[in-house]
């Protein structure tokens, strides 16, 4: 995902940022914004909300930097991102101005062809799959979705997820287990529902 800066450098940046050095903090932002935004997007399923959550997370992170006592910056900032995502979800719950269907945006189709050798059909199919997965994620309970995004999209370990989401290892395990099973069922149902279906790729 993102390319975290060497830990020594990161410590120096954190120390400088703690003293109010915005430029130093912005270096950390550059290192982690791709990860933060990706997590937020997968949790929220909306580009706008993900942007809000990400910006909010970095602002909050800068303000709360004095509470950061060493350790890795990544889980710390991801925890803030997650909390901002929960806040966004609360807002959406309180003001359900948009129908739930609109939450699944067509953003996946806007992706530019990254691999010039990829056939247009394959590209379209990949985007369809991405859309289906995002829709399946959106259908999951929030807690399971958060864990699933961190584990399966961003490859975090159970330990990391437990510390980021402030729950026990066992909770991470069970949420992930249930979330995966539900997502699988969702994708299978999608494949059966649609006439031509998705060709689910083998691992």
């Amino acid at each position, binding site marked *: 995902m993102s390319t975290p800066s060497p830990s020594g450098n990161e410590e120096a940046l954190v120390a400088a940022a703690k003293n109010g050095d915005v430029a130093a903090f912005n270096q950390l932002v550059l290192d982690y*914004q791709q990860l933060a935004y*990706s997590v937020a997007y997968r949790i929220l399923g909306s580009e706008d909300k993900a942007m809000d959550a990400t910006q909010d997370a970095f602002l909050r992170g800068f303000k709360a930097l004095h509470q950061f006592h060493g350790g890795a910056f990544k889980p710390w900032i991801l925890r803030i991102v997650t909390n901002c995502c929960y806040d966004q979800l609360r807002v959406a719950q309180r003001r359900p101005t948009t129908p739930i269907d609109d939450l699944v945006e067509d953003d996946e189709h806007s992706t530019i062809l990254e691999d010039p050798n990829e056939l247009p059909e394959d590209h379209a199919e990949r985007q369809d799959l*991405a859309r289906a997965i995002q829709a399946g994620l959106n259908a999951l309970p929030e807690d399971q979705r958060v864990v699933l995004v961190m584990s*399966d999209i961003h490859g975090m370990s159970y330990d990391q997820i437990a510390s980021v989401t402030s729950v026990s290892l066992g909770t991470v395990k069970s949420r992930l287990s249930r979330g995966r099973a539900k997502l699988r069922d969702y994708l299978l149902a999608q494949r059966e529902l649609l006439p031509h279906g998705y060709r689910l790729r083998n691992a």
Partner: protein
Amino acid sequence: MFELRNLQHRLNHRFAAANLSAFLDGELSGRDRARVQRHLQGCATCQSEVESLRETVAQLRSLPLRPLPRSFVLPLAAQPEQRRYRRWHAAQGFMRSATVAVTLMLVLLLSSDALIGTGAVPLPDMMRPRQPATSSESPSERTMLSQDAAAGQAAPESEVEATAPVSGEPEVASLKAAPAEDEPSASVAAAPQAEPTPMAQAEAPTGAGELEGAAPSFSPPEGAYVTGEERGGAGGMGGGAEGYGGGYGVAGEVEAEIAVEKMAAEPTPETPAPTVAALEEETPQEDSATPVEDDLAMRAAEPTQEASEPAPLVEASPTLSPMWIVWRVVRLASGVLAGLLLVLVAGLLFTSQQARL
């Protein structure tokens, strides 16, 4: 035997089904992993389950990275501005709540002044009997209490002075007796006097004459209400709470009554108190005027009539009712707090405005 094996299989199956996900992730301990693995070899259901889960994970992993719509770096220039604004904002937030608190406290102070004579607020069992036994207090204390003294004496019912029983609480007496000078920090000084001090009684005589003499000299046109308000406004000066008490007719009568009873009940031999004693002895006798003043004499006459009624000697003990004490303490505390908060708000306003420049 078959039953047992079947049961074991079911248990293993349940365990495996619950742990397939963690098995996939390599998050199982060695023993658990071996158990799942062993079960997988003989269970087609679990095999297909783990396959489908693996496929799902692979699909999730294959999701393309979302391109960043924009950069999220914080604006360099805006940051200090924002911080300053935030500090100012925080100060404003504090001041808003502080203002509310001050307002509430002032309302409490003023309303207690208004309610105190109406019976809505508990009156002490024995209203402040004016014992002029204040000579024991240091002169500074007296001056500090002077505001309240002024208040009490400003009140038209100066009979309170005349009818002070011997066994009264020195705090009351002192408030009344203190020469009136303007000293802003009355409340703090007044606080420690809540308990009757025997010292004050012992030295009563000297203070008495002087104080009684001084009493009539203060006659501001305003009654106790005004002083109460002034105290509220000044914030920290709410302490000498007794000052206005005499300002209310009802209270005054009650006081006088109590005072007389007091005298009847306890002769307090340890207080020789010549001047005071003279005053007090005269009050129970119907028509004898007090030697101090016409006004005083008139006032003194009132209580004596009431005193002739056979009132039960409830007030014989010099203890205050708990309700009354609580009320006093609340008022005192709110006065002090209101003053402190006002000072704080002023200071904050000043500093934050400076920070803005």
